[in-house]
């Protein structure tokens, strides 16, 4: 079910953010075309996650702008940006621990069944049908990432690899145009990494969304990305085709002394 990619054009221009005197991100620009898979790499502390936080509205940039499909999102609230179609996962998994697996996914689909206090109380038939549909949808997403049958489990009782998949299912549930993956392969063993790469490929083929990911593992980076941006000390160091970037002497230097 490939649709012609016209949605999911993400453009970040001249992003700047300072925490006190520390410039976390300085004049960083990048773009992702509809359906493109873009990797952001860089040494630890380079500001990669901060870039994600700027895109998703956790921080407002001091300068610069974020534009999705021609709509400027700079300064919007987090929930509004998410509803506009930017989903994300987190470096240190952030699942809702008090909710079960199915509910974790359903939370994210919430905006599509707007809640209203009185209809919730009266539980109108239409409302209940919408709730059932949301649960059905959530099951489908769980099925897609390979978590079928674990709907009632508590997220913290799942093995690490499955928690990562659950975060992915939750991100799918907001029906994203762009999905941001923050070190999605961190903590996975080699066979899980290969499985994860396949999963991302499958999802990308099916939904054809734009993917922007941060990753340290070269296997993931080289296998998945169409395009790479290298961030070092908050600034853009290099960008382009993955192979070219990997051979770039500046990039190699930035990584000297870094593990992988």
């Amino acid at each position, binding site marked *: 079910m490939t649709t012609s990619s016209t949605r999911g054009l993400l453009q970040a221009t001249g992003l700047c953010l300072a925490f006190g005197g520390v410039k976390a991100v300085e004049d960083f620009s990048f773009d992702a075309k509809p359906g493109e898979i873009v990797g952001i790499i860089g040494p630890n502390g380079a500001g990669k996650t901060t870039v994600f936080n700027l895109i998703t509205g956790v921080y407002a940039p001091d300068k610069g702008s974020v534009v999705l499909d021609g709509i400027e999102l700079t300064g919007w609230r987090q*929930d509004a940006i*998410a509803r506009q179609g930017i*989903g994300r996962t987190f470096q240190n998994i952030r699942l809702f621990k008090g*909710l079960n697996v199915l*509910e974790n996914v359903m939370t994210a689909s919430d905006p599509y069944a707007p809640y209203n206090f009185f209809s919730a109380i009266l*539980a109108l038939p239409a409302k209940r049908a919408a709730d059932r549909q949301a649960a059905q949808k959530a099951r489908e997403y769980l099925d897609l990432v390979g978590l079928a049958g674990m709907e009632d489990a508590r997220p913290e009782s799942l093995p690490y690899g499955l928690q990562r998949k659950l975060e992915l299912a939750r991100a799918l549930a907001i029906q994203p145009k762009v999905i941001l993956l923050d070190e999605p392969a961190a903590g996975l063993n080699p066979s899980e990494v290969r499985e994860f790469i396949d999963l991302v490929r499958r999802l990308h083929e099916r939904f054809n969304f734009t993917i922007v990911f941060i990753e340290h593992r070269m296997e993931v980076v080289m296998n998945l990305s169409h395009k790479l941006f290298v961030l070092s000390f908050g600034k853009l160091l290099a960008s382009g085709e993955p192979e070219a970037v990997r051979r770039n002497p500046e990039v190699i230097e930035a990584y000297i002394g870094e593990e992988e």
Partner: protein
Amino acid sequence: MLQNIFFGLSLGAVYSLVAVGFALVFNILKFSNFSHGGVMSFTAYAGYLAYIWIFDGRISGSVMFLAVVLTAAVAGAITAVGIERVGFRRLRRNQAPVIYYFISSITLGILLENIITIFASSNFYSYPVFFSSKNIEILGMSFSVADFVTLLFSAAALAILLFVLYRTKLGLAVRTVSFDVNTASLMGIDADRVVMATFAMSGALGGISGVFLGMNYSLYPQLGQLVVKGFIASVIGGLGNITGAVIGALLLGIVEVALIGMVGSGWMPACVFVIMLVFLLVRPRGIAGVIVQEKA
């Protein structure tokens, strides 16, 4: 004996409404919302005003009771939402420390009490007698109709609340925000609306409990200070834990009635506070802490 337990349960049922209204807000914003007391006084008076201005002479008995309770519940929801807007939203925006919320809530509670005193003076008013003072005889024991209705009505209100919390998307959103508001908004949940809905639910419960308290103790501006009972029940049951709050409140009701029998009504409140202190020191998670812990 059984009669006393029943009376304790009916008292505990009112406390449970207070405690749950209290726990709802604690759950989501992690502070003890003492403005809930102000809401209870306010709504008790709102119900009374509706009675003398609108309903008196038109309806009576249990219909009157329902009308007054519904008015109070709606007034409570509106007041609580207003309080959130005035007292807490700005603090949330600035991610202020929890102690600010706490102080703001106490301030707002006292403010409401003072406003009521200005308009209603500190006189006592009383609701009409909604239910016949006759007792129901079951198995040779007599139970008062009012206690019966209190118990049933509180149970129904709590059942509706639990249904909303655990079976609807609004409830899911409330639970989600209570676990992690930041991640929730990154998943597209509008935290402002969820917090507002939570305050509305809490306020509606406050309204219902306000009327019951007014029926039991008559109306005076400091009526809402009985929020302390809800607080004690919350501590016994585990702060922020809804089921715990209900269990704690029912226990509190029974213990109070038992204590009145044993040490008299003068010593009873002191004993209750000692029990609460013991809980705070020995088992701050409350009795439900065990249950929740084991499930996780």
